[in-house]
């Protein structure tokens, strides 16, 4: 009997691998993902986000920003980037954040000279109770970011309940003490669709307390949460003329 069979048995008996109860969590807003995560993303833990393809770093950034601002609750979000990131991937834009329904005033940004400084600043920041979440962008696989560094981050995150997101453009996953690991890319709009909310193709490839999954999510810019992307069937129906005809109105003077 292999793992898949075991899971099947468990599912048939309506059992799941017992989650650690009592961990504070935040919902993503996407119902299926939340239920698989036993109620949401674990707060005060380490989460890793990888762009699924070479050019998906913008999608990964958007996904991370959404998760991190939800995890930060009302507190400050500390975002650490490296010097050349702005040139390579573009600078985080305040208007872009506002347009996504994220308040830029809650951001504290640090431009670190290198990966080592970024990690060090992150550990320093994690001792500050005023932060709600921290995002650390570390491109490629620098030697300094090893299992020990990940453990340190995990430990520091749990002490003041600050959720840490490691955003890893053009990097390969390595052994780590992460709570969850996500691979994100943008999902194409459906044919005949109008320009809609940002769509993400999200794969949860590691989940310490449950199963993995794969979804197409949308970011709801008005409510600041993820939601299930509408499927092709709905789109087809819309394209087929499901819009209600506006009632005719006349005005006379």
């Amino acid at each position: 009997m292999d793992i898949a069979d075991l899971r099947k048995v468990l599912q048939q008996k309506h059992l799941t691998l017992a989650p650690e109860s009592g961990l504070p969590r935040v919902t993503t807003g996407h119902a299926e993902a939340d239920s698989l995560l036993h109620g949401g993303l674990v707060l005060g833990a380490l989460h890793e986000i990888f762009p699924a393809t070479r050019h998906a770093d913008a999608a990964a950034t958007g996904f991370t920003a959404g998760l991190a601002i939800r995890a930060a609750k009302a507190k400050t979000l500390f975002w650490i980037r490296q010097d050349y990131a702005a040139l390579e991937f573009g600078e985080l834009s305040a208007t872009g954040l506002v347009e996504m329904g994220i308040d830029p005033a809650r951001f504290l940004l640090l431009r670190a000279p290198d990966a080592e400084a970024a990690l060090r600043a992150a550990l320093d920041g994690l001792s500050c109770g005023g932060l709600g979440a921290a995002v650390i962008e570390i491109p490629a696989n620098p030697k300094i970011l090893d299992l020990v560094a990940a453990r340190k981050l995990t430990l520091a995150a749990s002490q003041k309940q600050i959720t840490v997101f490691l955003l890893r453009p053009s990097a390969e996953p390595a052994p780590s003490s992460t709570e969850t690991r996500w691979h994100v890319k943008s999902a194409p709009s459906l044919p005949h669709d109008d320009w809609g909310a940002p769509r993400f193709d999200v794969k949860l490839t590691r989940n310490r307390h449950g199963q993995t999954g794969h979804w197409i999510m949308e970011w709801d810019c008005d409510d600041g949460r993820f939601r299930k992307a509408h499927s092709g069937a709905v789109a087809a129906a819309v394209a087929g003329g499901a819009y209600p005809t506006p009632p005719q109105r006349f005005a006379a003077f």
Partner: protein
Amino acid sequence: MERIQRRRNGLPPSDIPLVIAAKIENALRLTAVDRKALRLRLSIGMALADARARVPALDVVDADEHADKALLESIADWCDRYTPFVALDMPHGLLLDITGCAHLFGSERALCKSLEAALVRQGFSVCFGLAGTAVAARALAHYASGTIAPPGEEAKTVAPLPVEALHLETLATHVLKRAGLKTIGHVAARQRGELTARFGAEMVAILGRALGQEEKPISPRRRLPDYMAEHRFAEPVVTEDVIVSSIRSLAETLCAVLCERGEGARLLEASFFRADGAVSHIAVETAKPIRDAAMIARLFRERLDALTDPIDPGFGFDLIRLGALRAERAEAQAISLDANDDDAREVGFLADRLAARFGSHRVLRFFPQDTHIPEAAGVLVPARAVPETKLGWETIRSEGEAPRRPLRLFEKPEPVEVLAEVPDGPPLRFRWRRVQHAVTLAEGPERIAMEWWRHQSAMPTRDYFRVEDQEGRRFWLYRDGLFARETHHPRWYMHGVFA
């Protein structure tokens, strides 16, 4: 002169007289001579050719004003240990305001002696004078070295000095001597009205200062701290632990004073005086006035850790000083019941700590700007420059709409090759960073005119398109210039990427 002799220290002393020459009024003239040269009747101001004619074996060195000034600066740095109020008196002098400092060394004479002894040990010859005004002290230093004028008796003390001691213009000095007024006493005896008529009010003012009747403050080289505390060590300290703990104890002293006055420090500077005379300064700045010793010590530790060129204790520091260069009113803080205030304060302190380590240009917050030009609408400014009041951010999209501005914006829009169906239509395919993208969905144009009232040169109007490629990636492209009206070959640029 002594700079060169110090450098030559260790070489066998030579019998050849040393002179320094510089070009003055198109002729090489001597600007300094050593004792041997002096004995041979060479004097300052003499043309080099004349000097060579008299003494053929002459060691001539070119004057180097910059090196002289640098040396004087470093001596001035070292003098900071006597008083924070040190001014350069070019070209060879230093002025120290030792008001209220003398008792720390026993007496005025003891202070002067200790200063002189230390400089002589370093290979300098020193003249000093001490008086109630800077001009009188300088006159004494140059023409009656070692004199200390008792308070109120400057006039009597400087009276026998020659008029040159006033450091007037050459012409004025010359005229005074021609008139038979050889000493300051002679000049002082004249009517002020006569002197003003002949030499102007400035000369009379200088005379007044020399006689101790008028006073003009000297301008110090460094900014004077509002508050300071210092720690002298009988034995020079080397280890970092001791240095940090002494900063901590200095901070406690400083904070006690600040607390009493209801102020907090915004800009702090620690000065480390090395036993061999070198001085280094390290400053930290804070976003809000602070008077918490632990915080101050932590900021300095961050700063010391982050120095790429760590301060070198050499043989140890014998004096460490901590000054609050800028202090501001700070109300005593009541313990806040609102958790948000605590959070904001903690984040503020984190930003200060990070700024101390990485530099304030790296710790940033967003700040809105009142403009519709995309790249200027939200700028990143140092966290400590952002006011705490609520910032107004306005959305451009209407409710239910997708974002109209990209999440990541390129500081410099990048040129792209675009294939469009019609010259003023949306792109069909484009090539960016050597990758071909086929457009499956396009939105636009959104026309953004540049702000002609701000820029001198007219910038073309931009037509922005939101486009999606076959993989679902979304880009923000613009065409620079209106087709046919502003340009016939519009160029395309990539300005940002959407999430």
